[in-house]
């Protein structure tokens, strides 16, 4: 009695427990199907979007749904069967062996047919008929459970999409095979999407009576089919779920038919909404662009949110619209979109678009700005390319497409020497290195290309190109030298030591002027030289030596460095009497030049005698001739007299 009382006293506990168990059981039961619209199972845009997945993405998806495949049928059989090997347990292979003579079970993720794996077959079929591969994937599941099956039977592959396989009649063998099944299913879908007159369709757009079950006594209802995709699904599976089937969620109900319901549930679970949801701000922008008849065309996929930095995206037939709080709402389409896709869209170097697509630029080009750069397209280039980071800043400062470079004509290419980057343009290039980011175009660009660009003798550019020097010349500095260009002198580089020497003579503004050649190697004693408008610079073991043209002409008459004068031991020295110049060579040999007398050699005893009387500043003045040899001696005429020399008397100065 006491026990009974205690139990009675605990009644509230049982009530609470009962309520709790009831609460838990409500969670474990199937949730009713949410959002089912009998007349619009799926939007056309989603049904026909064949670019939702790549073959690789399909493969990853298939593997995710069968993490472990029981290929050899080692698990216990769900269907009973003989214990063929007498080990006391009935495994799947034993059941398969006895019923279908099959002991190996390839999951869809591992299945191949005629040299293609299942993911490739699905993708190829989707492309062939412009049907969403996700639709085909769900079809394989709802007809044969092939996506989640860890030990599928051959018969399931034979009738993979249930095509030619009535519920209450034998299957038609002419449709057997995974490829064949997918092809026929997609072909039928496409025919209905195209409203093909050669395909009979018992269900049409508009009002249709659709049954709940193959058993007519289960009844049905009128359904107003709103689009072709829904029409195709009903023509494929000609039943709709009754309210009991909808209330049962994944479960069953009296008189229920589950094909279209399961299609809807699987698609929602695996790929998202079957009907397109458009974000308000994206819808607004879409309307501004003309809606479905505008540049973007009809909607083809649901909005996708939670992108980088919380952004959203909506796909359309001809492009997409992106939204993020930082960048606003802007479209992406056409040639610019192609490049944006190649650059991994919002996750790539460009980030989100920050402007509309702007066309009507030079040469009918188009442009769009992004968070981290811009994309340019021109019909003359034929492809869109980016402009980003420091390269973008430089391009912008040069006037972008209206500047000397024109439109970008290559992607940004990095990994050059010392980690440099490069981008080609219609008329040149921009290089980025640790030394800065600079352009390269025109004649100097051609020269740079012919000489190995950054890997050649010049290295990376370290300045922009300048054209503010004399004779309309242009120049640009590089890591290891500079390049100068004029119409009259051509384009030539000036490197290292010669460059230093040239600078000492005021570069192009000095007597030497612009270079007429590149540095030439092979002079005497492994030296080199470079000719300029006003002279030549030699680079020898003694450093740089300048020889003005006035002196050089006479020097060359005597064989230049290979002749008796050898190399000069000084630069040409000007500013002497009457604007004359002279140059010293080895062994008291000289060349003197004045505008009135020209260049003449003075050397040996005559030079010593001339020196004693004050050289050009003395009464003799400049030499009028070179030394002239006669029998027994020589002489040389000067402006104010003559110096004779013979071995017996030495030198004698005679004034006029």
């Amino acid at each position: 009695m006491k026990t009974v009382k205690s139990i009675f006293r605990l009644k509230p506990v049982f009530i609470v427990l009962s309520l709790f168990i009831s609460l838990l059981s409500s969670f474990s039961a199937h949730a009713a199907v949410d959002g089912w619209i009998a007349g619009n199972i799926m939007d056309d845009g989603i049904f026909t979007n064949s670019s939702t997945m790549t073959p690789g993405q399909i493969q990853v998806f298939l593997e995710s749904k069968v993490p472990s495949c029981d290929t050899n049928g080692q698990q216990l059989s769900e269907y009973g069967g003989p214990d063929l090997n007498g080990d006391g347990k009935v495994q799947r292979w034993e059941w398969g062996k006895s019923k279908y003579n099959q002991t190996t079970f390839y999951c869809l993720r591992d299945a191949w047919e005629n040299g293609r794996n299942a993911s490739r077959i699905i993708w190829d079929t989707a492309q062939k008929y412009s049907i969403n591969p996700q639709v085909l994937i769900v079809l394989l599941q709802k007809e044969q459970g092939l996506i989640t099956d860890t030990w599928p039977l051959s018969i399931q592959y034979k009738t993979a999409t249930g095509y030619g396989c009535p519920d209450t009649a034998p299957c038609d063998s002419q449709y057997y095979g995974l490829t064949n099944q997918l092809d026929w299913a997609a072909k039928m879908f496409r025919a209905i999407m195209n409203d093909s007159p050669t395909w009979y369709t018992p269900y049409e757009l508009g009002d249709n009576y659709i049954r709940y079950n193959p058993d007519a006594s289960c009844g049905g209802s009128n359904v107003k089919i709103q689009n072709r995709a829904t029409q195709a699904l009903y023509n494929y599976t000609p039943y709709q779920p009754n309210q009991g089937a909808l209330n049962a969620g994944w479960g069953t109900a009296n008189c229920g038919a589950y094909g279209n319901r399961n299609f809807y549930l699987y698609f929602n679970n695996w790929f998202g909404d079957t009907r397109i949801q458009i974000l308000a701000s994206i819808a607004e922008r879409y309307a501004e662009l003309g809606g479905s008849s505008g540049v973007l065309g009809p909607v083809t996929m649901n909005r996708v949110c939670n992108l980088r930095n919380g952004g959203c995206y909506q796909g359309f037939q001809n492009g997409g619209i992106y939204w993020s709080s930082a960048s606003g709402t802007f479209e992406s389409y056409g040639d610019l979109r192609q490049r944006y896709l190649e650059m991994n869209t919002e996750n790539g170097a460009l980030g989100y678009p920050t402007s509309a697509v702007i066309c009507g630029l030079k040469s009918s080009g188009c442009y769009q700005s992004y968070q981290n750069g811009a994309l340019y397209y021109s019909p003359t280039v034929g492809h869109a390319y980016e402009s980003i980071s420091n390269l973008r800043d430089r391009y912008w400062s040069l006037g972008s497409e209206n500047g000397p470079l024109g439109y970008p004509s290559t992607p940004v290419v990095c990994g050059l020497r010392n980690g440099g980057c490069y981008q080609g343009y219609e008329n040149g290039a921009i290089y980025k290195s640790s030394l800065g980011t600079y352009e390269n175009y025109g004649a100097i660009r051609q020269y740079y290309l012919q000489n190995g660009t950054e890997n050649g003798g010049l290295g990376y550019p370290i300045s922009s190109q300048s054209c503010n020097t004399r004779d309309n010349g242009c120049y640009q500095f590089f890591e290891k030298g500079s390049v100068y260009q004029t119409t009259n002198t051509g384009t030539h580089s000036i490197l290292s030591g010669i460059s230093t020497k040239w600078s000492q003579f005021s570069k192009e503004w000095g007597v030497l002027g612009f270079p007429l050649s590149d540095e030439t190697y092979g002079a005497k004693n492994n030296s080199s030289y470079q000719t300029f408008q006003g002279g030549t610079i030699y680079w020898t073991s003694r450093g740089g030596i300048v020889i003005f043209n006035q002196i050089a002409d006479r020097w060359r008459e005597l064989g230049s460095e290979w002749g008796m004068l050898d190399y000069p031991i000084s630069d040409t020295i000007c500013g002497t009497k009457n604007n004359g110049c002279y140059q010293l060579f080895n062994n008291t040999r000289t060349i003197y030049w004045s505008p009135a007398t020209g260049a003449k050699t003075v050397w040996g005893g005559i030079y010593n005698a001339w020196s004693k009387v004050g050289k050009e500043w003395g009464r003799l003045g400049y030499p009028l001739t070179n030394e002239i040899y006669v029998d027994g001696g020589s002489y040389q005429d000067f402006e104010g007299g003559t110096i004779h020399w013979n071995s017996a008397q030495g030198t004698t100065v005679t004034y006029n």
Partner: protein
Amino acid sequence: MRIEHKSKKRWPLVITIATIVIIICAGIGVYATQKFKPNDTKENTTTSSSTDTNLDPPTNEEIQTGKDIKEQKVNPSTPVQTTESLNITANNTDSNIQVRATIASSIQDGTCTITLTKGSSTVTKPSVGIQPLSGYSTCKGWDIPLSELSSGTWNIEIVAKYQSKVASGKTEVTIP
């Protein structure tokens, strides 16, 4: 002594209340987990260049439904029939009576004929072909103008002939 006696009698009550509190807390926890779980955790890996694909392992419901589908194939609850039935639908649109007929069989070639009768009135239409679809075959169908049918209830009979077989079905439609 009385005080001790009272104290002993209250222990079950305290335990009971504590148990109730724990159960309620657990229940609220379970509810909150179910109610407020993210709709779609897969969105964490979303990019605009790939759609919103769920790469989680399949749920028990997805697996079980797949197994049910397979079992229906292996051990069909609806026995495969050797004779096919013909299913007719007749829809009254604004301007036509839309008559369709399907046959639960894969039929490559055949013809369907339709006869509509109301009392002594009979309307016939040219026979049409049969085409196999996914899990059944269909007669091409007929769109009969309302102007050809007087008000009242019409009996519709369709006969399909194919592969030396005959299937037929009847229904009726009321013209207002």
